């Protein structure tokens, strides 16, 4: 129950719409980046030369030095915007947890996975970006050396599936929220989300295995 004690009405503004645009655009941009990033890194499966050549290209054109921090910025902005919807208060967390358990509803659970994975990704993604961007240039040998330390292997075994889940669900949810996934094509949307997540987790797993086996 709310009690209205003011005489005035708040001035209607457009900020909610702009923030929603920005949340969607940073999200969509990060989804595209994550999938591209995974494909580029997986070039190591084709050979060390392939990955190093790609890394050299991004280094020589300045894209790694400029693009890296920009992605970091988009990552933080996306977090700040999406956090407006995430329950940080314990009472809200209790409500949504009980609600999800009561409802047995896939899409409601997916949102909880998205919100929960976001917190881990915020921390681990930041560590990953800092580590890579403060030790440029990227090379297959350096990445392999990192993955061959068990602490880092464990780190990526957690980060990889969480990122791909978050990204896959985000892709589906943008489609739903903005009306691209409708009632008549929802089943297809769910299927694409599942397939994309599985494909990218698999590519990531193969890439990790390749790094582990690099001499």
């Amino acid at each position, binding site marked *: 129950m709310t009690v209205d004690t003011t005489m005035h009405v708040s001035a209607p503004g457009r900020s909610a719409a702009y923030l929603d645009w920005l949340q969607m655009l940073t999200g969509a941009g990060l989804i595209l980046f994550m999938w591209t990033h995974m494909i580029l890194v997986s070039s190591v499966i084709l050979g060390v030369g392939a990955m190093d050549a790609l890394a050299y290209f991004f280094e020589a054109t300045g894209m790694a030095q400029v693009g890296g921090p920009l992605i970091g910025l988009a990552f933080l902005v996306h977090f700040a915007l999406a956090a407006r919807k995430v329950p940080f208060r314990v009472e809200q967390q209790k*409500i949504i947890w009980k609600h999800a358990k009561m409802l047995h509803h896939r899409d*409601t659970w997916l*949102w909880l996975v998205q919100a929960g994975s976001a917190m881990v990704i915020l921390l681990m993604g930041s560590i990953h970006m800092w580590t890579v961007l403060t030790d440029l240039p990227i090379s297959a040998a350096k990445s392999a050396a990192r993955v061959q330390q068990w602490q880092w292997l464990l780190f990526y075994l957690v980060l990889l599936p969480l990122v791909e889940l978050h990204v896959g669900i985000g892709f589906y949810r943008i489609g739903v929220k*903005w009306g691209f996934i409708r009632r008549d094509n929802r089943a297809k949307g769910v299927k694409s989300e599942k397939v994309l997540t599985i494909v990218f987790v698999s590519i990531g797993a193969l890439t990790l295995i390749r790094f582990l086996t690099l001499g």
Partner: protein
Amino acid sequence: MPRNLTFNIFRYNPQDPASVPHMDTFVLGETDSMTLFIALGRIREEQDPSLQFDFCCRAGVCGSCAMVINGRPGLACNTKVKDLPAEITLLPLPFFKLVGDLSVDTGTWFREMYQRVESWVHTERVFDPAQEEERMDNDTANRIYELDRCIECGCCIAACGTARMRKDFLGAAGLNRLARFLIDPRDQRTEREYFELIGNDQGIFGCMGLLACEDVCPKRLPLQDQLGFLRRKMALSVLPWKK
């Protein structure tokens, strides 16, 4: 072989200081074509006359018998027990004010929602009772009717994670209500005026796309499509070249 059905039913009377929220168990023999409404009626007649639940039309039209059936909001009158397991748990709809046991007050919320979305045709045209009624093309009339089929049972609101966390969220019922006027050619409100009503986090931009509204609506209203339509419409209306 008819089953024996076990009903676990939430009991609490907020008017009675001695009442404590708890679950009561009732066992009832299943009969042919039994709906939850019929089962609840029999429990009240045969086992406990103090059991509170709402009903009116018994045909999925009035929306008063909405409750949480094994975790999912739905109508008691159009839920057949043969589609449910032998153990059935019934809870009142969350979000709304509890009247007692399975009965909740959805009316107060819906009335406030009407006021928020200004749920009436806004027009400067003066009504002339002597004139023949203005014609509307059939497609538009059907589209409006499709959204007007909402029976205000409150299932979509009770199933909405956002509404559960944020009580000021308009929810699918409120947004669908506004969409109905937005496509009505008689309503002269501008896009800007609609934006002022729902272009915020309590309105369309608060929707997180969890789709529980779409999945529980007993009337199968096209809620998912309406929410997507409204978000696009409202978000596009603020673009600089749209001013």
